[in-house]
């Protein structure tokens, strides 16, 4: 496998084959909690892509200097530092989004995706592959958040509001929109339906 095919391979596996949410099923709590609004997915996704990519890059580049015995504490310190940077910057420059995402931004530290990629990938791969992995996994995560956010906000409120502007509306449906979709049960229902669809798709692929 050449260098470029390997980059592409590591990048695209995060979307379906090894999607962090739908296949690896890591980092579910935060995504179930904040996917009640499409816009949340954008900010949460960007925050995760940033932390994931930069912690992957840093860990892959200094991996030869990290003693195996204390690699986990070092990973956590690195990840926590990036998360705190995102936390402070979002609070300063996107206060409205920050107040909605609230505690879930600092909690990216304990989001299993990040540590799992550090331990399972970046620690044993080159910087270039780790960039591809971080971006791909981060985008795969964001992709699912956006789909869930879109379905839940649309069914639960009858419209999609982006940066205080209604960009898409179902009209009269909005008045009867069942708010269960923006509450916690809606998160599980939506996630379960998406899982079922994905499994059906995978089963078909195997049949053929």
């Amino acid at each position, binding site marked *: 496998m050449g260098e470029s095919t390997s980059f592409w391979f590591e990048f695209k596996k995060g979307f379906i084959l090894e999607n962090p949410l739908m296949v690896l099923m890591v980092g579910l709590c935060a995504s179930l909690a904040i996917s009640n609004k499409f816009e949340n997915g954008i900010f949460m996704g960007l925050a995760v892509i940033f932390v994931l990519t930069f912690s992957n890059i840093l860990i892959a580049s200094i991996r030869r200097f990290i003693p195996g015995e204390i690699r986990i504490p070092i990973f956590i310190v*690195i990840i926590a530092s990036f998360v705190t940077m995102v936390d*402070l910057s979002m609070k300063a420059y996107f206060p409205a989004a920050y107040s909605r995402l609230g505690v879930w931004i600092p909690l990216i530290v304990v989001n299993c995706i990040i540590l799992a990629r550090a331990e399972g990938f970046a620690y044993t791969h080159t910087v270039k592959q780790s960039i591809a992995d971080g971006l791909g996994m981060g985008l795969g995560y964001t992709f699912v958040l956006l789909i869930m956010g879109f379905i839940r906000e649309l069914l639960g409120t009858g419209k999609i509001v982006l940066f205080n502007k209604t960009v898409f509306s179902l009209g009269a449906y909005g008045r009867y929109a069942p708010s269960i979709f923006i509450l916690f049960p809606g998160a599980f229902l939506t996630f379960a339906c998406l899982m079922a669809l994905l499994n059906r798709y995978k089963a078909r692929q195997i049949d053929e």
Partner: protein
Amino acid sequence: MRQLLFKLGITLLVVGAISAAALAGTYVITRKRIEKEDREAAAKASVQAIPGLKSPSQLKEEPKLTDTAKKAVPEVTKVFSTPKGNIIVIDSRGYGGIMENAIGISPDGKVIAVSNVSNRETAGLGSKTLQPDFLDKFKGKTVKDKLQVGQDIQAVTGATISSRAVTGQVKKALEAFKAISSGGGSE
């Protein structure tokens, strides 16, 4: 063994020191902006408790009145005086966490309007109690009104706890107003 422990310790020390430096840098860059955003957001929300006020600069914080009000009602965080009446900011527990509301009260003791400063209520459900549809019900209420959910205030369907929290805050603001207008010097 000792050498290994030393090496591990030094590695952790270096990683920790670099992270601390990076975080300190980020903190210094963002601090001023975060403080400014917090202050502006609070002032912008508070000023809406009395419609007709143009900008947050028309708010005057009154430390003396705040103290008097706090003695009567501990949940009061700030009291502003404005040309059209007082604005009392209160925070207490809602359904999702602390919510802070600003309540504008006219000199004759009537609620002018209620405006939300910050909240953690469930989006689309508890948050409906912070929308004009619900908050307008408090217009003109005085300290003599009962202000009880289910009696003179109808709760938002499915958001009884949030409705009670907001109603309780309005009632407390009126009590605080009574305290400052009777005891704490005439404004």
